[in-house]
């Protein structure tokens, strides 16, 4: 067989691999960080106690709203932490006091906004109670761990029922707003105090919102990928069309894990069926990227090393263009426009092989 140098295949990939060593570490750092945020927070609070007095002096001199918001964006380290801490305790105590009233208000606004339509009012109210209490704990302790666990469990319950990401984020933001309004109402007489209360409240509330949102999305991602895995198992049949002729119809999304699995399955089938010709039909593949294209090239080359020729059929014009744009080396790939044409070509090749092999030698199979 005509063997060309195995050049173009996965050159990019190897480079990326070397790099990914560094990024992997970063990733785990980042995660450890985000987990530690809560602790840091409380450290910062105690550390900057000394600065607290100075800060509050400055604030009594000039306390327009704009200054307050500047301070907020400055970051938390600059916050007068001891005071913030006690303010936070104060506002949590107040919000707990108004628990039933605010919870009801929140549930009302949820149905007003037509969120969580798939759930009954009772269900919404019971989850709302749980979320409310968890929310308070998270505000109070600055630790989102318990809330995260709860949010994951909640997500697990509601994802199968079709609750959407915007609904979850929507209800958490609603709660944030309901609580903020109640704080406005209570402290409206003292704008300065209100500002400081909000300074304590907002970052904590936002952290809670982020925690819930992220937990939901991650849980959703997990569910989706579990389903994808299940589908993947089902969706890659290698069909024997004729003696020594295989068809691999690929349908759906090709990522590198699936491409890898396809390769293994195909090579195994080549060995098992003693196939000499394989038709890979990608009519059902919507798009392709460089990594996957290179996988495809590798699959073809590996098949060839096992002694089977490959015909690729059903390249959409979009995929064909992508392959050209990506500069994927298709020099060694035999492509035929559609599956039908591919099968004709395959039979020609297989027939050629079969006649040649059995007629002149007659060795046992």
């Amino acid at each position: 067989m005509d063997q060309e140098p195995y050049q173009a295949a996965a050159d990019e990939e190897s480079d990326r691999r070397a790099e990914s060593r560094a990024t992997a570490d970063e990733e785990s750092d980042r995660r450890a960080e985000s987990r530690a945020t809560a602790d840091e927070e409380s450290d910062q609070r105690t550390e900057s106690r000394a600065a607290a007095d100075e800060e509050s002096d400055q604030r009594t001199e000039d306390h327009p709203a704009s200054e307050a918001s500047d301070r907020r964006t400055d970051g938390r380290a600059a916050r007068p932490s001891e005071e913030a801490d006690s303010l936070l305790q104060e506002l949590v105590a107040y919000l707990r006091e108004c628990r039933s009233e605010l919870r009801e208000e929140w549930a009302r606004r949820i149905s007003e906004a037509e969120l969580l339509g798939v759930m009954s009012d009772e269900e919404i109210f019971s989850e709302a109670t749980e979320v409310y209490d968890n929310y308070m704990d998270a505000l109070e302790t600055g630790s989102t761990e318990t809330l995260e666990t709860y949010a994951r469990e909640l997500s697990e319950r509601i994802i199968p029922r079709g609750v959407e990401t915007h609904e979850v984020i929507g209800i958490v933001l609603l709660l944030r707003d309901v609580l903020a309004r109640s704080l406005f109402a209570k402290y409206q007489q003292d704008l300065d105090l209100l500002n400081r209360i909000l300074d304590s409240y907002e970052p904590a509330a936002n952290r809670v919102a982020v925690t819930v949102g992220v937990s939901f999305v991650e849980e959703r991602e997990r569910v989706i990928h579990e389903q994808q895995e299940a589908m993947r198992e089902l969706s890659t049949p290698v069909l024997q069309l004729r003696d020594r002729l295989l068809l691999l119809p690929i349908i759906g999304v090709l990522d590198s894990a699936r491409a890898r699995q396809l390769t293994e399955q195909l090579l195994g089938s080549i060995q098992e069926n003693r196939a000499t010709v394989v038709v890979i039909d990608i009519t059902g593949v919507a798009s392709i990227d460089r990594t996957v294209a290179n996988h495809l090239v590798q699959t073809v080359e590996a098949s060839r090393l096992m002694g089977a020729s490959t015909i690729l059929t059903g390249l959409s014009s979009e995929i064909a263009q992508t392959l050209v744009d990506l500069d994927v080396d298709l020099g060694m790939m035999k492509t035929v426009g559609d599956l039908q044409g591919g099968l004709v070509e395959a039979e020609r090749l297989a027939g050629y092989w079969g006649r040649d092999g059995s007629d002149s030698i007659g060795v046992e199979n």
Partner: protein
Amino acid sequence: MEDEARAGEQGRADEVRVAINDDADLVTARAEARAMAQRLGFPRPDPTLIATAISEVARNIVVHVGRGEIVLKPFEDADRYGLEVIAIDKGPGIRDVEAALRVDYSGRGGLGLGLPGARRLMDEFEIASDADTGTTVKMKKWRFRDELARLREERRRRA
């Protein structure tokens, strides 16, 4: 030296050391690597990829230095685990490591040490070499704990 490798295996169940003195030891190193990869749950074709990479670095020891050692050990971190391979020799070192790693598109690979190829077969590849201490090649092959971790990694690679 063969005995030494066996003793290492018994002494620490999680680590296998194979002394590399001649080309027959490559066969041992490949077999040990394959066995450990299978024990760690690596799916096909990973055990073969690992054994191939090890074959290359072990051969460099035999051909260019004469003796050295291959250490195989499992590793674990946050969202993945796998097999780490360390190839050690006390030879004169590789003068131009960069060149040895350079991808040669003819497929012959840089200085002909097979290192670019070995690197492509593994997920991590590091090499330290100088005239005083010799050459150490560290390679890792990963297994992800779950599908999400793998996807994150894949996304990062593409980015």
